[in-house]
Structures are given as C-alpha cells and as structure tokens.
C-alpha cells in the first residue's frame, strides 16, 4: 500500500495556509499534500494548530491566506451545491463524538442518509445497522448517546461518518481519553476501513503509539508551522530538537534556564511563548 502512495493522485492539498485568532497567528504557512488511500497523522503538542488545521480543511473556518483543495476542488471557490456534494464524500469523527443527544445511536447514523438520499426507511435502517456492525456496535442502535461509554461514542461517531461511504475521513483525537485497549481497537478500525474501503484519512492526534501504528506519513506541527513530514521511520530518526522533544514527551520548558524564565515573565511585552 505504502509503496503505491507516491503514484496516487492527490486528494487533499493545502498551500501556504495562514490563519489568526485576533492578533495571534495560529497557522503560519502550512502545506499539506495527501494522496489517495493514505493515512496521514497530524501531530504536535497542545496549541500547535493541528485541530485548527483540521477545521480549516473541513471549511468550518476561513483562513487569512492560503488555498485548500479537497478532491481537486478549491473549497473557497466552489458553489454551495458543489460543496454539498463534496461534503457527502467526507466523513468526520469529532473528539467528543458530537453525536446528536436527542437522537438514538441508530438515528444518528441514519441522519445523513435521511437528509441526502431518497432511500426508503427499510433500506436506511439496514445500512445504518450494517455500519454499526462495522464498528462493533451491532444491536446498540436503540440506545441514546448518554447511555454509551467514551469508546462506544467514538465508534458510533465513526459509524455516522462512514454511512455515506466517503472518500475522505477525518479524525480529531480518535483515541484521546480512552484506555489503551479501546484506543487500540479504534486504531484497528481505522486501518481496516482504509484497507477495506480504500478511504484516505487525516488523523489529528498527540498519542504517539496510535500515530506510529496507523500512519503512512506523519506531519509534525509546531507553533502553527509545518515542522516535518515523513514516514514513521523518518520521524523516529529525526534529529530535529522539537520533534525529539515531542517523541520523548519532553516539555519545551524542561531545559529553560531559570534566569531566562524569570526575565521572560517580568518583561514589558510579555506574550505567549
């Protein structure tokens, strides 16, 4: 699979993406090029801009500068109708699951089918149950989201995200807050979806074990900048100090000189480090 990636066509292309929250620059010229069938993990510490990058790729935020192409279409140029069609080729699994709390698990999974297809209720029910089976939640369709555990919520959200058989799948922290066994189950699900359905995936995570298990390529973000992109082996072998800090779970302040730290705290133009 990995050998073929370079010959595949590009499904996600991000060029020189810049964005601000107020005066603060969150993304600073990020580039991304993801091939069909690839699992790209975006890693970085908290506040590195990885989730922000994801929301921009999904069109939820407007960047200050830069262009984003999904499946060959510029998401800031296309018409509403084309964007709507494009969204049916995209699935998103949110960190919190974002299941609709007023609907049962089955209704959550069935929602995109009810809204965008002319399928009859019977077919919709069968497809929803099939997708719940794929994520090992068969028989849970009548439960409400509040009755599910954290891992089950993530799997139900995954079932909803794949119900329209999308070409692109996005995950925001899929294994955050889960115990190692459940986190590993989610990783296996991600791999099996790629292998069985040929989806391209973008996974935002800071879980190293998970990233190394599923990634074809990893992009490391730091302070809104694209620090390094490479295979798991290339990332592990990197001599970049920030990448090494990240891999060894070292705080950037670990080796800060106390005098420098005090100076920074007391300076007039004190800003976020």
């Amino acid at each position: 699979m990995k050998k073929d990636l370079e010959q595949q066509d590009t499904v996600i292309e991000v060029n020189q993406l810049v964005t601000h929250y107020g005066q603060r620059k969150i993304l600073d010229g990020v580039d991304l090029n993801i091939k069909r069938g690839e699992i790209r993990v975006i890693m970085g510490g908290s506040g590195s801009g990885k989730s922000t990058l994801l929301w921009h790729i999904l069109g939820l935020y407007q960047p200050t500068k830069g262009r984003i192409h999904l499946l060959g279409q510029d998401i800031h140029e296309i018409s509403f109708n084309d964007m709507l069609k494009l969204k049916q080729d995209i699935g998103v699994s949110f960190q919190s699951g974002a299941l609709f709390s007023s609907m049962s698990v089955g209704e959550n999974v069935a929602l995109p089918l009810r809204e965008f297809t002319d399928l009859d209720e019977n077919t919709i029910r069968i497809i929803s149950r099939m997708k719940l089976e794929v994520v090992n939640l068969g028989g849970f369709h009548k439960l409400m989201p509040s009755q599910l555990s954290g891992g089950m919520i993530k799997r139900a959200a995954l079932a909803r995200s794949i119900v329209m058989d999308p070409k692109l799948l996005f995950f925001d922290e899929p294994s955050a807050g889960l115990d190692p066994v459940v986190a590993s189950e989610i990783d296996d699900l991600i791999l099996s979806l790629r292998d069985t359905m040929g989806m391209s995936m973008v996974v935002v995570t800071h879980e190293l074990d998970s990233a190394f298990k599923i990634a074809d390529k990893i992009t490391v973000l730091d302070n809104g900048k694209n620090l390094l992109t490479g295979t798991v082996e290339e990332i592990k072998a990197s001599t970049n100090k920030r990448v090494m800090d990240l891999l060894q779970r070292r705080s950037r302040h670990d080796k800060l000189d106390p005098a420098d730290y005090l100076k920074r705290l007391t300076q007039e133009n004190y800003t976020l480090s």
Partner: protein
Amino acid sequence: MWSYQAIERLGFAMRLFWDSFYWLIIGRRYKQRVRLAQVIEQVRVNGFDALPIVMALSFVVGMMLSIQLLYALSDFGAESQVLLAIAKSVTREFSPLITGVIVAGRSGAAIAARIGSQVVSQEIDALKVIGIVPVRYLVLPPLLGLMISMPLLIICADVMAIFGGALFSVQKLDMSISAYMLESFNVLVVGDVLQGLIKSVVFGIIIVLVGATTGFYVTGGAEGVGKATTSAVVISISFIVLADMIASYFLTQ
C-alpha cells in the same frame, strides 16, 4: 463594546430570519428540505404542551381584570361596560402579552439551551460537515412551529380570559355565563381578534430568533448555556413588551 455586541447580535438575528425563509423557499433544490414532521413536532412541543398553563393563566388574568374593572367602573355607575372592556383588552392586549411571556419562558429558554448545548458539544459543527444547514435544521422548524401555534394559543387564551371575567362578573351584572360569553363575542369586531393574532405571530418570531441567537453565541460550556437561557428569556420578554407597544400604536391608528 456592549452596544457593538448588541448590534452584532441584532444583525445575526435578522440574518437567521432571512436565512430561515430563504431555505424554506429554495431548500428543496439544495437537498435542504424542511420536514413537515419536524414542524408538527414543534407545534406540539411549543403550542399544544403550553396550552394548559396558557389557559390557566388567561383564566386568572380575565378574572383579575374583572375584579379591577368592576371596582373602577363602579365609581361611574358603569359596571355594565366591564364586559366590553374585558373583551377588548383581552383580545387586543392581555392574551398575546401573557401568552408571549409564558412561551418565552418555556420555548425561548428551551431553544437557547438546546442550540447552546449543541454548540458546546460540537453538534453544530457536525451538522455543518454532514452538509446540513444549521438554520434550516434547528431554527426554521421552531420558527414555523411558533408562527402556527401562537395564534392558536391566543384564541384559546381569549376564550379562557373572557370566561374568567364572566365567572366573576355575572353576579354583579345579573347575567348568565352563556349570555355573558355570547355578548362578549358580539361586541368584538374582527380587528380586535386580528390585532391579537398579528401580535402573537410577531412575538413567536421574536422568541425563536432571540432564543436561537443567544444559543448560537454560547461560549464557556455548561455555565455559558445557563447564562444564554436566562438571557434568552429576559431579552425575549423585553422585546415582546417593546414590540407590543409599537404594534399597539400602529394597529390602533
């Protein structure tokens, strides 16, 4: 700063109103259909479920008006005019106002809490990435629901308030309840009832737009949702009273 935020939210509410009808008209073309079942559900939740409390309070208001008016009119020996006074004031003013306040407390708060918690739990973002326009899915159904159910609530409130007035007045006026009710309906003209119905539709729109706007602007988790709920009720009632005064001025010219 405060006025800038107020203007921004007023603009947002106007945008919601415009977008709601935009999607109502052209939604089908873009696979953004408004489902009848959703609207009927909103009529049930915001209208039918509010019926007992609206009828009970309207009955009490009718009786209270009767007590006050009989007392005030007795100074002029004009107790017989209480029937006319209650019928006109109830249909033109009190029913829409009382119903508006009750529905703002029930439905306005519920809309703000629902949308606010959906913002906090990323459900709105989930709707957007699925391709569902949040305004069409979350705002339009309650908007249509209240535009339909408010006038129906007002008619029930009118009848109950007049009945409440009748119950206290009939002894003083030496009339039967049925004769009082019949005479009340006779003194009313279409314009009286229509004024209340027009106001009720306006109040329904205010309740949904204020509830939705405060909901969409929620920040800060559960505490933010709580604050939005309180704000939605206070702001809705304030706008209802203001709109009532403006509507009364124009509809009595």
